[in-house]
């Protein structure tokens, strides 16, 4: 590895040759013969840099007659001079200024670069400037609000290594929903944080079949092609430095509406009077009781005078855990990012080298993320530029510290009572009640058990929980031009990722102390035995992923007298991805000597807490897994162009994989696409002066999607022993030789247009996107031995519009440009055999609720009949009449008779970005909107209230007496817990509301200092920028105080961040 790197860097400079002649010269500009001292001159092919003095002069000694000079300068056209033709003495190199012209937009498919004007498919290009508008440490978030049809979904729990993005909806029910991400020619399936956004040149989004079907079985959710930065031929070394600081506000912990600590105490007091805690007092599990309850017990038992008890309780009323949290658990977030890169090239070599460093301190104190990345790529051209050899190395090291697991969405927070006090006046951590009654733990501690108290703030300090990743990717590409029209290429990538997550729970942490204590055996003589040894508990998990990608490709490109043009590629590709993971737990770990102690996993132990519990086992956390993902694919793509006006394209791909089983591979049905493009504005009869550019595109084809959760093979599971003491097996998955990948059939009709002087430019696309052969569950004929079949038997239908418009509203001194994105999407399940099990299956917000004719994610509710005026009970309908038999209402409900509100995901969405610029100053603001969807509001859970666990502040607004139903929808407090009543109310139609809203996403301000305006500037250019993200909601349809997209403590709205940055180009 080491030698490889050295070789890599030395290669370009080893090509020196002997020289012979002397030449003196000067570089001047064509206008005014101005000397150009910043010109870069290279002697080619040796590629020797020649120094230029302040007057643009240079001298060359001993040159070979076949050498050439390559003279370049920013803003000028590069000139190449053959030294053979130079007589001697003075050589004046006159450089012509570059006339800015409309650059042809090219898009990347991951297989080839094509000009957008010749493409038939739906491509969206996000260029470097737009990518750099936002500040973030990941690349994916920079696609937000800049790509029509691309949305970021709210998901309950994000899937590891997935983005929760969807492009034009989700044409699948149970398979992968994430777009395929391509980084430098090959699929990238790792952690998206492992791509430094500063290394990304641009991104192309492939949306329809013609664009994406070249990626075959993995392209069904669209494809995101990320192209990293490369050096340019014939350009001097360019150095660029980017540094920024991104400060995030503290999250608003009062955002969530919960009852006040004082109300909480009132409820506890009332429950106490009712005797609710009597059983808990006698609990065999010594269940903890909150301080107020303990005080009330002490008062009742006469251990505390009622005066003292009341005084202490009223003191507790003044506490609010959220205040302590803001002070001790949360902080301002602070992300720093530094990136440096150097790039350049000569006539037959180009290179790009970069280094990046990120350091993020998130809102939760004690957590941190650090990332170091290096990237170097180098291309060499041999055999009169017929052979191109590119090698690149990408290395990344990241380190995430997760010491603070006390956040407001954590399990630890959920067990805390709202009047808990985390620290005393001096900031010293205080113990709070947890798990067991103090009277029990006190006695245990007196008997020699470990301290059993829980101090949340100390936990943060003692934690030692981190995960590290080392990742590298090595690419080697060979491209050989056989003849000018035909090139053959081979690409290879080796990727390696090594992740280690390590959680050492110190013997001083509550987790470890509690575990040791729970298993402690106290002998009658008072001696203690500890089956879980004293010492730390270390959980470590290692995962190694390796992948090989190999591609062979032939590329043919020829134009016949400008009339016919043909571009075709064909080739094969092989990929092999292995993921091996293992994990273990060590007990009695001693970090200093890296030793651990053995434990007995087999025997049963008796709980110290509840001696009746005699079957405790010591948890064995050892695990091992190995996954193999292999593909062999064949693909072809061709585009034929006639007179520059008509384009016909076709592509096909066959994927064979180890996932589907032999039969599916043998059938080898290709996923294909066809496309037509017509540039109407080039026709002779075209006469619309106001619309100088008009192009129509029409495509049709198939994309695929992979589901790794089911197998074509019969799979079984072994069980211990049957009644004859014999091991036996159950069949989990019937053989399904007909299993195949899901397909998405996409039709796309598009218009590209540009008005005169480019004042308005845009693309309007209409698409139909039908998921077919989707993996779904369906009831099945039991004669086969199975009653529910999971196979390719569901489908979805979708259609939508994507509009993107650029309007250049003013073009004078003040430039005002608007970028308008509009997408609408109507997607429904069109075939699904099985019913979602039970009524409650339809009540999830983030889970799929497949019902024919309805969206995949839909909001259903129980129809509310208002509150019962007599007792404030929520009422539903049973057989058409208002009813309060909740069990019966729930049992009688199904997808047909529940209220269907609409989609749970936006059906209309987009953004409006206005950019104002005067000279070097520009200001832009992004407004995004999401419309046509519904959400379920959180409200009070009375069971939780009645169990003394607090809840939503709607409690304060509840029905209390007849007549209240006029102004409140919130039911009365029931006499006893009633799970069905709760389920009914929390999913009743009163709590469903429109999610439609418009938000001001961000603001960006930047100012560029150019050398040509500030001659004293030591750099070519400095760009200063400010970026403010997550500014706030401008309008929302609901009158709920909360953000429709962020309704629970598990999904607090992202905090507002302020970023300041500098980008310097040398």
């Amino acid at each position: 590895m080491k030698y490889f790197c050295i070789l890599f860097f030395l290669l370009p400079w080893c090509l020196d040759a002997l020289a012979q002649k002397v030449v003196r010269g000067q570089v001047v500009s064509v206008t005014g013969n101005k000397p150009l001292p910043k010109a870069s001159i290279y002697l080619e092919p040796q590629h020797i840099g020649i120094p230029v003095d302040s007057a643009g002069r240079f001298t060359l000694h001993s040159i070979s007659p076949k050498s050439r000079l390559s003279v370049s300068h920013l803003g000028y056209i590069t000139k190449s001079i053959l030294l053979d033709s130079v007589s001697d003495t003075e050589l004046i190199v006159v450089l012509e200024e570059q006339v800015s012209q409309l650059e042809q937009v090219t898009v990347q498919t991951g297989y080839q670069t094509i000009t957008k004007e010749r493409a038939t498919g739906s491509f969206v290009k996000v260029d470097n400037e737009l990518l750099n508008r936002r500040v973030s440490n990941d690349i994916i978030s920079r696609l937000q609000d800049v790509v029509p049809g691309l949305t970021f979904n709210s998901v309950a729990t994000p899937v590891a290594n997935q983005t929760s993005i969807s492009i034009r909806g989700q044409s699948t029910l149970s398979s992968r929903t994430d777009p395929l991400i391509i980084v430098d020619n090959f699929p990238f399936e790792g952690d998206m944080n492992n791509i430094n956004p500063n290394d990304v040149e641009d991104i192309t989004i492939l949306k329809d079949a013609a664009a994406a079907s070249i990626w075959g079985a993995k392209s069904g959710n669209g494809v995101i092609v990320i192209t990293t930065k490369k050096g340019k031929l014939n350009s001097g070394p360019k150095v660029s430095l980017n540094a920024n600081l991104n400060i995030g506000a503290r999250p608003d912990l009062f955002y969530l509406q919960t009852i006040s600590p004082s109300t909480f105490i009132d409820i506890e007091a009332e429950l106490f009077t009712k005797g609710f805690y009597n059983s808990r007092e006698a609990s065999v599990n010594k269940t903890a009781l909150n301080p107020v309850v303990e005080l009330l017990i002490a008062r009742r038992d006469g251990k505390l005078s009622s005066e003292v008890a009341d005084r202490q309780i009223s003191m507790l009323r003044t506490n609010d855990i959220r205040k302590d949290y803001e002070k001790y658990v949360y902080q301002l977030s602070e992300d720093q990012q530094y990136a440096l890169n150097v790039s350049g090239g000569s006539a037959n070599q180009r290179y790009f080298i970069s280094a990046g460093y990120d350091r993020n301190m998130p809102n939760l104190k004690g957590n941190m993320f650090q990332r170091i990345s290096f990237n170097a790529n180098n291309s060499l051209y041999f055999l009169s530029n017929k052979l191109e050899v590119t090698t690149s190395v990408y290395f990344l090291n990241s380190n995430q510290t997760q010491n603070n697991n006390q956040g407001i969405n954590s399990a630890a927070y959920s067990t805390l009572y709202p009047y808990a006090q985390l620290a005393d006046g001096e900031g010293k951590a205080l113990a709070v009640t947890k798990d067991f009654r103090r009277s029990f733990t006190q006695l245990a501690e007196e008997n020699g058990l470990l301290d059993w108290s829980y101090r949340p703030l100390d936990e943060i300090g003692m934690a030692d929980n981190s995960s590290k990743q080392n990742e590298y990717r090595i690419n080697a590409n060979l491209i050989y031009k056989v003849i000018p029209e035909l090139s053959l290429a081979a690409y290879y990538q080796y990727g390696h990722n090594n992740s280690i997550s390590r959680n050492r729970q110190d013997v001083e942490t509550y987790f470890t102390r509690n575990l040791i204590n729970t298993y402690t055996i106290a002998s009658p003589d008072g001696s203690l035995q500890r089956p879980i040894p004293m010492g730390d508990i270390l959980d470590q998990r290692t995962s190694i992923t390796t992948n090989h990608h190999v591609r062979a490709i032939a590329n043919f490109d020829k134009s016949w007298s400008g009339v016919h043009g043909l571009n075709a590629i064909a080739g094969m590709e092989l990929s092999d991805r292995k993921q091996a993971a293992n994990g273990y737990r060590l007990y009695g770990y001693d970090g200093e000597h890296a030793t651990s102690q053995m434990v007995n996993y087999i025997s049963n132990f008796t709980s110290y807490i509840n001696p009746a519990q005699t079957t405790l086992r010591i948890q064995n956390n050892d695990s091992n897994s190995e996954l193999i993902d292999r593909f062999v694919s064949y693909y072809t793509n061709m585009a034929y162009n006639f007179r520059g006006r008509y384009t016909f394209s076709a592509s096909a791909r066959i994927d064979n994989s180890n996932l589907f089983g032999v039969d599916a591979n043998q059938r080898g049905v290709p996923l294909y696409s066809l496309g037509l493009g017509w540039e109407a504005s080039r026709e002779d009869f075209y006469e619309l002066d106001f619309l100088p550019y008009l192009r129509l595109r029409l495509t049709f084809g198939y994309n695929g999607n992979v589901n790794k959760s089911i197998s074509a093979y019969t799979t079984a599971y072994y069980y211990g022993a049957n009644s004859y003491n014999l091991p036996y097996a159950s069949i989990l998955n019937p053989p399904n030789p007909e299993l195949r990948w899901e397909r998405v059939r996409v039709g796309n009709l598009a218009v590209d247009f540009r008005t005169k002087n480019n004042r308005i430019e845009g693309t309007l696309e209409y698409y139909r996107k039908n998921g077919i052969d989707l993996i779904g569950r369906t009831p099945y004929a039991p004669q086969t031995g199975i009653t529910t079949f999971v196979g390719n038997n569901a489908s979805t239908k979708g259609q939508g519009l994507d509009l993107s418009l650029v309007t250049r509203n003013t073009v004078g001194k003040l430039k005002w440009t608007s970028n308008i994105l509009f997408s609408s999407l109507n997607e429904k399940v069109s075939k699904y055999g099985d019913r979602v099990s039970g009524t409650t299956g339809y009540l999830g917000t983030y889970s799929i609720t497949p019902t024919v004719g309805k969206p995949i994610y839909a909001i259903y509710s129980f129809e509310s009949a208002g509150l019962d005026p007599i007792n404030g009970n929520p009422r539903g309908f049973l057989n058409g009449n208002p009813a309060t038999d909740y069990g019966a209402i729930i049992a009688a409900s199904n997808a047909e008779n529940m209220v269907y509100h609409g989609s749970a995901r936006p059906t209309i969405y987009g953004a409006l970005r206005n950019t104002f610029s005067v000279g070097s100053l520009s200001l832009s603001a992004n407004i995004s909107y999401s419309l046509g969807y519904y959400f379920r509001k959180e409200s009070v859970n009375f069971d939780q209230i009645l169990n003394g666990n607090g809840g939503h502040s709607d409690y304060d607004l509840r029905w209390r007496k007849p007549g209240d139903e006029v102004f409140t929808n919130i039911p009365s407090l029931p006499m006893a817990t009633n799970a069905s009543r709760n389920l009914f109310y929390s999913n009743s139609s009163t709590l469903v509301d429109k999610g439609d809203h418009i938000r001001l996403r961000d603001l960006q301000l930047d100012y560029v200092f150019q050398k040509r305006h500030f001659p004293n500037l030591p750099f070519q250019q400095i760009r200063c920028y400010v970026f403010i993200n997550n500014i706030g909601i401008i309008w929302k349809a609901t009158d709920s105080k909360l953000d429709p997209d962020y309704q629970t403590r598990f999904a607090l709205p992202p905090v507002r961040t302020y970023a300041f940055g500098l980008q310097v180009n040398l």
Partner: protein
Amino acid sequence: MKRTIAYISVLVLALGTFSNCKKDFLDAKPNKALLVPSSLTDFQAILDNVTVMNTTVGLPNIACDDFYRSDANLVAMSAVVNNTYFWRENIFDDLSSNDWDVPYKTVFYANVVLDGLALVARNEQNSAEFDRIKGSALFFRSMAFFHLSQMFAVPFEASSAANGFGIPLPLNSNVNNLLGRGNLKQTYDQMINDFTVSFPLLPDRSKSTNMPNKCAVYGYLARIYLIMGNIGNAKKYAEEYLKITDKLIDFNTLNSSAARPMPNGGVANANEEVVFALFLNGYAYDSSTTTFVQPELYQLYEDNDLRKVCFFADRGNKNYTFKGSYFASTSSFGGIATDEVYLIKAECEARLGQTTVALDYLHKLLLTRWRKSNAGTSTYIKKTAVNSTEALKIILQERRKELLTRGLRWSDLRRLNTLAGAEQSLVRNNNMSAYILIPNSLRYTFPIPLNETLSSGIQQNPR
């Protein structure tokens, strides 16, 4: 251009070479944790899944005339039990039924094993195990077909077997193949064929009663031939069986006052009569403390007949419940046991006119069922008959008394209905009204659950 062609040829050649090793490359298991049954051990483990392989239909016990429940007690039973009890037109209100699903699951598991065996090489080292597993899978498949046929196919009549509806007969594990019902002849041919193929592959007896063996096959063949009216073959296989084992439990050795006096045939080989254990789907019917044996049946047990105390628990008010399951539990036993084979042998002899031999075999069985005097002599007096018809009548009555709750009574009723003079009507009383099942009623064939007919479109049984 020539060079271009040369380059392309090289590329094509390289691709060609690659595709040879492609198969191995793509054969890798995507997840190592995935257990794809492929070894003989795996197949044996699948066949040892007792809850799938050794479980079959249970409703015939409810439809037959051995037990009854009072009106009040019926309310507590599920709709399926009530529908079956009164032989209603619709039985399976909730679309599906374990009595259809479970035996077909047995068939599916057996087919998975048979398909899997096709990919395992049989050699000298593994031949014994290979054969036993193959024979076992064939056995289980036919066994499941047999029990399905007794519920869902029309009663067998040789004359019309080519016309009557059989049952779907899946012979491989591809769940994409949906089959029609075929005819009755195909169903019986398939069972007989598979059983005949399986017995040379199986050992005489197996180490535990959940595993198939020659005796079990002979038992089933004797049952099937008896139902088909092929007395010669039924007798032949009963004799083959008895050559291997003819041991009976002496009821004098049992503790008749125990809650479950029978030795458990569901563990190892505790019950020497049981050669193959088969659980009948439970509907909490036979085992209920309020499902009583029909008084006229109970009356048939004489006082010295130990079955009277070993089989029945006194629930007061002259109500008796069954406690004599060969599983020594609330589960009903439907497998093959030696007592049944004695009765088949006796019946065959009687039908062939061999009155003496027939009664000899009955005698051998009943000697073990009756109380012995203190001197060790049996209180049983050998039954006599003036002719084979009378002998047959005695034998059939003893058959009913010996084999109740075994799921066989329903098959017997179907069979006897087709024989002149043996048919009988069944009557249920409820809320002062009587429900009658007349001989050869269409209701002797259960309807096929709706989830099957809706999914595969196979024809429903007329009721």
